[in-house]
């Protein structure tokens, strides 16, 4: 296992919604080149943890270390400036725009105020090629015309396009069929192999065990387990998720 500094390290992170404690002193760390899975039952606090990393919903308390340095994540802009990108379950794509437009959304290339479509198109196509994407035919298709797997591919490619260090995938396979799930999981593996830190949130333990290096389990706002895939089993993880088992979490 890698002993280098984690790309992201959360220490004693807390978040309350009114009287409800959604995150209770959560510790979490992710390393480059690894797929880190975050699992837990509905309402365990997975989305809240991710929204904090994305800067959409800042944590109330706690320390965030990015490559060992303390940082603040108070806005989506701060997160994306650090190289953290989230691929959401609802995909956050604009159906009425084409693939190139979506991949460059919010960060369009322009020359003296005029969009440089040629440069954007060429970079988008290169990125899809570098991910060995074979399912997308033309980068000028409207996203509305793509299948679920293709949309997921575009959303992941967008995160790669910007050379992000951390790519967070929220339920990337939830809406996909068998073949498309397989393609997306391969893509996730390739992302980590290319040196990025990948966080994957999933309900599907089969997918998690297929792709993850390390598994974190949230149970009612507490991080109840942090294990390497090689040292655990699906039955153990189910135990952690349902609260039947617990493990002291060392960071």
């Amino acid at each position: 296992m890698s002993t280098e500094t984690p790309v992201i390290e959360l220490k004693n992170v807390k978040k309350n919604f009114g009287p409800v404690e959604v995150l209770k002193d959560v510790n979490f760390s992710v390393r480059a080149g690894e797929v880190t899975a975050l699992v837990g039952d509905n309402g365990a606090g997975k989305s809240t943890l991710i929204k904090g990393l994305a800067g959409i919903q800042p944590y109330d308390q706690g320390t965030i270390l990015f490559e060992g340095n303390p940082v603040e994540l108070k806005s989506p802009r701060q997160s994306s400036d650090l190289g953290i990108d989230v691929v959401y379950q609802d995909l956050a794509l604009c159906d009425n725009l084409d693939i190139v437009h979506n991949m460059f959304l919010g960060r369009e290339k322009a020359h003296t105020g005029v969009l440089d479509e040629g440069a954007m198109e060429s970079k988008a196509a290169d990125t899809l090629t570098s991910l060995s994407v074979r399912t997308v035919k033309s980068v000028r298709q409207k996203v509305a015309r793509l299948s679920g797997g293709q949309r997921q591919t575009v959303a992941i490619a967008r995160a790669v396009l910007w050379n992000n260090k951390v790519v967070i995938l929220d339920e990337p396979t939830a809406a996909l069929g068998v073949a498309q799930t397989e393609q997306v999981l391969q893509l996730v593996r390739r992302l980590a192999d290319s040196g990025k830190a990948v966080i994957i949130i999933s309900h599907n333990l089969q997918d998690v065990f297929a792709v993850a290096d390390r598994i974190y389990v949230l149970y009612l706002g507490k991080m109840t387990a942090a294990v390497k895939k090689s040292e655990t089993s699906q039955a153990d993880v189910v135990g952690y998720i349902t609260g039947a088992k617990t493990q002291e979490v060392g960071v």
Partner: protein
Amino acid sequence: MSNQTNIQTGNEGSFLDAGRNYIARVKGGETGSLPALLGLMILATIFAVANPIFLKPINFANLLTQTATVTTLAMGLTFVLLLGEIDLAAGVTAGLSAAFLAISMSNYGVAWPLAVIIAISLGMLIGFLIGLLVAKVGIPSFVVTLAAFLAFQGLQLVVVGKGGLIGIDAPPILAIMNTPMPIAFGWILLAVIFVLYVGSALYSRRQRTTSGQLNKPMGILVFRSLTILIVGAGFVSFLNLERGANPAVTSLKGVPYVVPIVLILLAAGTFVLNRTKFGRHVYAVGGNAEAARRAGIQVSRVRIKVFMISSSFAGIAGILMASRQASVDAAAGRSIVLNAIAAAVVGGVSLFGGRGRLSDAVIGGFVIAVIDNGLGLIGLASGLNLAITGGVLLLAATADAITSRKSRTS
């Protein structure tokens, strides 16, 4: 380079392939303004057969000036509709701007160029306030602009005075809608449009070549430029025909001044929407505001700017309205906003946001104006005219709803 890979850019293939792709897109529901354009041709044919006056140069020139105000308003509203919002106050904003234009000139002796700036600035300010209430406070635009629609009618009454009428006598303002340009100007206008179109198309081709991307077949550019040249030449020479009732006394020929004004607004607005970051963000916010927000786009700033643009267009529409009537009354602009919204929707701008172009609004404006004008010439009762306009709008909105549902579920 991407052309060595299996990922295409949609520019491969010949002129014929491009044509086939277009037909496939239309069949897939991306019809744009095509139905409106076909409808326009059918309507024009019917009216031309029913009453030959419809095709006379005088009627065509009338049609252009009749539609200019609504079209300008509709172009501005297109920006708002692209966000999935609505601006019911656009008409009264136009009326109020017209009142400020007239009063500043007649009561305070302001020079006309300054009065024009005042009128447009008033529009922009109104748009800013509406945008602020919609984007920052979070009131639905329907309610904000309905409130503004009512309040500004009152303000208009106060400013103009009950039953009042303020005359416009600045010749340049009156000339916009009432005087044609010299014959040569029409041809110069066409030449400028042609050069600008070909120039900008060649520029974007070079930009694509520099970054190693394929271009669309040259044949498409040639085809489009020739279409502009032929259709434009037809329009200009038609409008340059004598249309005065008694040419010996007053000769009336040439393209009305309002035509280049509307064309400049159309070109500038289209450029902003298609070629700038802001324009792209407008489509993104209209398509999926949450996605835009997560991509780091400042959604509320886009909203405010869009309302400012729309209301500035309304200000310009107010000037056109004042020019055409040579006066401003207390009810100016009250009735035109619904026609303008209808124009945009009939032209193919989606009410659900994210889909539509300014040229759609112009074509839709023509459809509305042709129905009005043609039925008037046939001598049908004006009640029927409104009913038909309503029917056409409903038809367009139905098509819009079906297309939007199709693209959401696929």
